[in-house]
């Protein structure tokens, strides 16, 4: 039989194996599903981001393009002379402002860098000379120019667009100042979500529009160096110690980088929800599987323990019966070998007794001694014979017959044999029989021997004054009749309990007990397919319990 710790180990092994085999696929499944979802979700987000970035870039380019073509159109439809009339130029500016209220002012600069005409709120700059300024050189060189956003003389964030027109050998420049707020409204939009952001950066990472978070306009937002690239790109960029997803695109008309920052919470929301769901499902699955595993393993172990125990009991009774069988064989052999010499001794003694009755021997002075010796020899031969004959009874191979018998009746009969003895010793025999006890297919003569042995033992154990109670009862599952014989004797100590069924175990005086009574009873009951058990505690009497199957299997 396995030890307790062995069962625990086995159980742990079983639980771990089952958990392993069922949890690993579950975890893989959960992970895969989550991963797939994450990938497709990220793709969707990227697509969305790219889409927004592309749209905004187009809007911005369109805006700049429109301004450029407006100014170009104005510059090329009239000669410089025409604009020198201040009212005319004022009208042109009003016209422009009607199309886009972000125009701050408008001016014309001649080839010397002097402001020849100006209309707008900053009259002080009328007299400025731009000859040495960077942008002036650039317009001269390229024909058009769009500046970065700057504060400039106007001390207001703005940028300029300038267009050069050649008239004969001279050239002049039409220059418009535009409020850079326009970019804020063009770049920002609801599409970006609560935590998204969008802004423009020039080549030096200086902000060209107001971001919603972080530095102010014209502050530095370091996203790293990006050389110009076509189309839209998305990148994970660390800003202020946090990773953000950015959509990036260079404008076509200006060396500005449009940066759209994804709303991280909105991006992660469904992912978080999915991860949460996956965890909940995994935890639920885990609980179910673990519960199931523990339950199954408990049942299996319990069953194992039960069958082990049954096996142990079976083994014990098999050992007992094979012990009995071999003992029986040996007993038979011994009995035979002993019986023949005993027979000779007995007859020799008998012959001596026969001779003693002759006249002349009667006169011998030792006659009495001879007679005594012969009596003793005969007595002890009889004693030895009792043992061998009981052994023969024990070894008897005779198959028990199976007739329908009424156990109550067999018991009553047995009691009548012992009544005198019991009465003589002041022992009362009580019976508590179940009426209408079912018949048992068994051997009444052999059963009687068993009952005799047990009741005999009880009488011997009590000695004088006491009681014996005999009960019968039918039980179901399995269908059996139970006979219990209880006495008020001294009981049997635990160590003796183990031995009382052993052959030759007796506590009785030499010549009074062979120690075979219970051994024989045991083997008879076993042959009849029943069981015999004792319950006893020292000082509390003893109960012998016999169970007999209604039919032998």
């Amino acid at each position: 039989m396995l030890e307790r710790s062995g069962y625990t180990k086995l159980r742990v092994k079983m639980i771990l194996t089952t958990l392993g085999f069922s949890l690993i696929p579950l975890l893989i499944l959960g992970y895969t599903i989550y991963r797939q979802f994450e990938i497709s979700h990220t793709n969707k987000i990227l697509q969305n981001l790219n889409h927004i970035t592309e749209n905004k870039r187009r809007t911005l380019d369109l805006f700049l393009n429109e301004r450029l073509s407006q100014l170009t159109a104005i510059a090329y439809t009239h000669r410089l002379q025409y604009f020198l009339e201040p009212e005319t130029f004022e009208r042109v500016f009003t016209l422009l402002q009607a199309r886009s209220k972000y125009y701050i002012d408008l001016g014309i600069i001649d080839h010397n860098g002097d402001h020849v005409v100006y209309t707008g709120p900053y009259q002080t700059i009328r007299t400025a000379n731009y000859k040495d300024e960077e942008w002036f050189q650039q317009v001269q060189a390229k024909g058009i120019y769009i500046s970065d956003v700057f504060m400039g003389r106007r001390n207001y964030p703005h940028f300029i667009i300038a267009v050069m027109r050649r008239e004969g050998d001279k050239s002049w420049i039409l220059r418009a100042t535009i409020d850079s707020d326009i970019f804020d409204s063009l770049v920002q939009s609801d599409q970006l979500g609560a935590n998204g952001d969008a802004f423009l950066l020039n080549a030096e990472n200086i902000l060209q529009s107001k971001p919603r978070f972080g530095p102010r306009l014209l502050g530095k937002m370091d996203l790293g160096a990006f050389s110009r690239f076509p189309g839209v790109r998305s990148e994970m960029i660390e800003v202020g110690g946090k990773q953000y997803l950015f959509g990036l695109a260079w404008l076509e008309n200006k060396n500005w980088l449009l940066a759209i920052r994804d709303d991280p919470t909105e991006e992660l929301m469904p992912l978080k929800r999915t991860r949460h769901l996956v965890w909940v499902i995994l935890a639920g699955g885990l609980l179910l599987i673990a519960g199931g595993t523990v339950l199954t393993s408990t049942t299996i172990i319990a069953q194992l323990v039960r069958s082990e125990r049954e096996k142990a009991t079976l083994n014990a009774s098999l050992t007992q019966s094979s012990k009995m069988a071999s003992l029986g064989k040996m007993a038979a052999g011994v009995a035979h070998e002993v019986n023949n010499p005993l027979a000779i001794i007995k007859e020799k003694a008998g012959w001596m007794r026969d001779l003693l009755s002759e006249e002349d021997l009667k006169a011998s002075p030792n006659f009495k001694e001879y007679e005594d010796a012969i009596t003793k020899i005969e007595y002890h031969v009889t004693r030895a014979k009792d043992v061998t004959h009981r052994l023969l009874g024990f070894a008897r191979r005779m198959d028990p017959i199976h007739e329908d018998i009424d156990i109550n009746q067999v018991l009553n009969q047995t009691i009548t044999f012992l009544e005198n003895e019991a009465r003589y010793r002041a022992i009362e025999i009580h019976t508590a029989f179940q009426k209408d006890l079912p018949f048992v297919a068994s051997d009444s003569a052999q059963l009687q021997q068993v009952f005799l042995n047990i009741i005999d033992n009880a009488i011997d154990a009590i000695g004088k004054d006491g009681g014996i109670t005999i009960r019968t009862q039918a039980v179901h599952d399995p269908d059996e009749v139970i006979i219990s014989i209880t006495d008020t004797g001294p009981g049997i100590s635990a160590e003796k309990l183990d031995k009382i069924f052993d052959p030759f175990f007796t506590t009785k005086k030499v010549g009074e007990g062979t120690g075979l009574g219970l051994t024989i009873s045991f083997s008879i009951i076993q042959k009849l397919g029943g069981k015999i058990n004792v319950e006893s505690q020292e000082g509390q009497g003893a109960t012998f319990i016999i169970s007999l199957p209604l039919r032998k299997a």
Partner: protein
Amino acid sequence: MDIKILLVDDESDFVETMAKRFGIRKMPIDTARSGQEALELLAAQDYDVVILDVRMPGMDGLETLREIREKNPLTEVIMLTGHASLEAGMQGMNLGAYDYILKPADFDELLDKVRTAFERKELNAKSRKQGG
């Protein structure tokens, strides 16, 4: 009426002592040490009762019994067994033995059985004569 008795056993000490004990009671008996010898004696003369040991080397008691029942159906046989094979005794009864006794036997009991066996033999013989 004298009873003619034949005792068959392979134990010489047993046979000799029994012969003496029967002798002193004025009941002389014949003895044989094997089944074979017994059958020879039976062929030579009639016996009323045969006391037959079950376990003997060579031809055993049951075999001998079978032969006797065949050739001398009127002769009564008492089986004597020192053996675990109580069944052998029972089997002997089935084969027509009159009775069986376990060794070591009580001499008086044996005597009783011999007498009753003889009575039965006489009865059988009488009924056979009347019937025949």
